């Protein structure tokens, strides 16, 4: 039996994703056609044997309540374990301006009563495959107060802006956490994943509240670096970061590379999600796809290349779709020609036929808009 409470955290105000985030919290973003981002940390946790998970969410939680339900489809025993959704109720402030620590403090009684001895905190905007059971063993064996996941990156000058980066000593002890402002090329990117005992966690939360009502968890951990043993664990796998519209687009597209596909098609490490009971997809007339993922329930009459297609999408006759992310229930009309676009849920491309963005700056069409 695994001995850690899972906490899935939300992002601070430094991360805002143009377009998509207007309509739903990052946790609910569609990923690879049929998933929502939150499915990935939940699946990592349940595949690692964790039964008790709380998802803290800012923004409108409506879609997540439907999506997560009792948690049974994540392979959680809904009696023995629990999968909770804890939304932020902002009093006048923007929801994502409420520090995570404030939410943890509000729920401190529940956290104190939780039977697990450790907590593992994971983000929704870094998608990766990790066995938390192994990481917890590593953390316990090291004797550290806190373990954090990181990955060394060499493109921090123009990428990963506003993400957290770590300064480390030679023994991979964490000296500080700061925001990446693009000053250096090589940095240690924090994967915003923390492992610590529940006792350490509760003390940090209390200390943070006593220090400042504006403090986030990472701020109090940063303050604690001089007098705590905080170690960084190098994550060697692939990460799919989502910190702006471009990275959302590119991280989806990464899945079209054959090597990456294996990350999430491992029968021993399934990614769970909610089923909509859609029928399989039908290819009609001259409908074809190449180098493309297609979810169920679609009707494809046009030609799709290098794209990711969500559930129940309709692609009309003679339409051409290349390098696009089409979210569920969108309609691409006959003869439309799309390149490097993100078409949000339920949008309809009917009247304007030619839409093109670039890989760096994909063209975004909002939810349920008609173009």
């Amino acid at each position: 039996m695994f001995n850690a409470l899972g906490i899935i955290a939300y992002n601070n105000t430094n991360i805002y994703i143009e377009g998509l985030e207007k309509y739903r919290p990052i946790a609910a973003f569609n990923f690879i056609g049929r998933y929502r981002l939150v499915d990935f940390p939940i699946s990592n946790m349940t595949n690692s044997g964790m039964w008790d998970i709380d998802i803290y969410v800012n923004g409108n939680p409506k879609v997540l309540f439907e999506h997560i339900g009792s948690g049974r489809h994540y392979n959680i025993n809904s009696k023995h374990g629990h999968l909770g959704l804890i939304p932020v109720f902002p009093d006048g402030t923007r929801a994502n301006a409420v520090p995570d620590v404030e939410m943890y403090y509000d729920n401190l009684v529940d956290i104190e009563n939780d039977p697990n001895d450790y907590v593992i905190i994971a983000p929704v905007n870094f998608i990766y495959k990790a066995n938390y059971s192994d990481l917890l063993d590593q953390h316990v064996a090291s004797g550290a107060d806190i373990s954090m996941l990181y990955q060394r990156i060499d493109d921090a000058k123009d990428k990963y802006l506003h993400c957290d980066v770590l300064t480390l000593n030679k023994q991979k002890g964490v000296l500080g956490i700061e925001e990446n402002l693009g000053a250096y090329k090589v940095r240690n990117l924090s994967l915003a994943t923390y492992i610590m005992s529940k006792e350490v966690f509760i003390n940090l939360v209390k200390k943070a509240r006593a220090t400042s009502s504006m403090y986030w968890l990472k701020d109090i951990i940063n303050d604690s670096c001089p007098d705590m043993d905080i170690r960084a664990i190098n994550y060697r796998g692939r990460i799919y970061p989502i910190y702006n519209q471009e990275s959302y687009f590119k991280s989806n597209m990464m899945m079209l590379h054959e090597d990456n596909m294996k990350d999430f098609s491992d029968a021993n490490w399934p990614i769970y999600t909610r089923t909509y009971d859609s029928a399989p997809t039908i290819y009609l007339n001259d409908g074809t796809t190449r180098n493309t993922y297609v979810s169920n329930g679609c009707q494809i009459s046009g030609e799709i290349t290098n794209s990711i297609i969500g559930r129940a999408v309709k692609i009309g006759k003679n339409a051409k779709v290349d390098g696009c992310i089409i979210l569920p229930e969108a309609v691409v009309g006959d003869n439309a020609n799309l390149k490097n676009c993100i078409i949000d849920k339920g949008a309809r491309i009917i009247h304007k036929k030619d839409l093109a963005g670039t890989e760096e700056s994909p063209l975004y069409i909002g939810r349920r808009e008609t173009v």
Partner: protein
Amino acid sequence: MEQNNMLAMILAGGRGTRLFDLTKKTAKPAVYFGGKYRIIDFPISNCANSNINVVGVLTQYEPVELNAYAGAGQRWGLDTRGSGVYVLPPSEKDGTKFDVYRGTADAITQNIEFIDKFNPEYVLILSGDHIYKMDYDKMLSAHKANAADATIAVLQVPWKEASRFGIMEIDDQSNIIAFKEKPKEPKSNLASMGIYIFNWKLLRKELLDDMKREGSSHDFGNDIIPSLLNQGKHLSVYQFEGYWKDVGTIDSLWEANMDLLNKNNELDLDDPNWKIYTSDIPSLPHYVGPNGKVEHCYINQGAVIYGTAKDSVLFNNVVIEEGADVQQSVLMPGVHVGAGAKVYRAIVAENVKIDPEAVVSDPDSKEIALVAKRVKKGE
């Protein structure tokens, strides 16, 4: 219980011998259909969508896979308070020595206690062998409106085929005058679909009487219906219109799958108001590779296509490797078609491997090939 006070019993004991190797190790209702479903998903989903919340599934032949599958009622949303899917294999009871169901009626007779527990007003008898969508609640309304003792769902079949079915002769009020099993000279083309609604009190008494009847085969069509007619009971028909297919043979199973390639097919599995529920296998959306080519296909999530697929139905986790060519075929879950292999006009059973360069049948074959074990190159 409650909702419409009708309990459904699905006769799922059939062997399906004409499906050969597909039903060697599993019961016919558990056979795969349409890219992601099993046959029994259709009657159970119909029940769930028709406000029926207690469903008994009567199993007998090779029941293990079917029992495990049907027992998980949450798949069809039938796990709320007062609802459930109950798997009912034959079981020894005090004072009897029965360990098999001796006929369709006997299967119900042996479960009278089970049905009595729910105290339903009506019992719906279904078979687990057919592909169709039907609102049983509407049939129940017709049953009540006619004040019938029993109502039988019928379908118009072509006259020349009528002698293959159980045929109902009716008067102008939809009342049944006579029932003939496979008549040589049919007087009507209304074929029984094997779907019955009975007033439970009446059926209960009739089943107990039938138990004592010498020479009875304990079958609804052969014994119960004729007996009720003889007694002058009020039997009515309910005419069904729409897609209905018995998938009891390899050819008919293949044809029913091919019907799905036509978007205007009457079955329309994509109707958001009448979904067919099934188990969800965690898998990525289906993927077509850089050189892959799909044309006129019906494809479930988890399939990966590097080669060519044309006019075919592909289930979850099917893999078609580079250079392979699949046409007019049904590939069940986990089928792996090796590089350069050719598969034409075939049904390939679950998890079967087609080796690289191997060839199955040909595009002009009249017969539909059933492939149930590994095919090697040159075979």
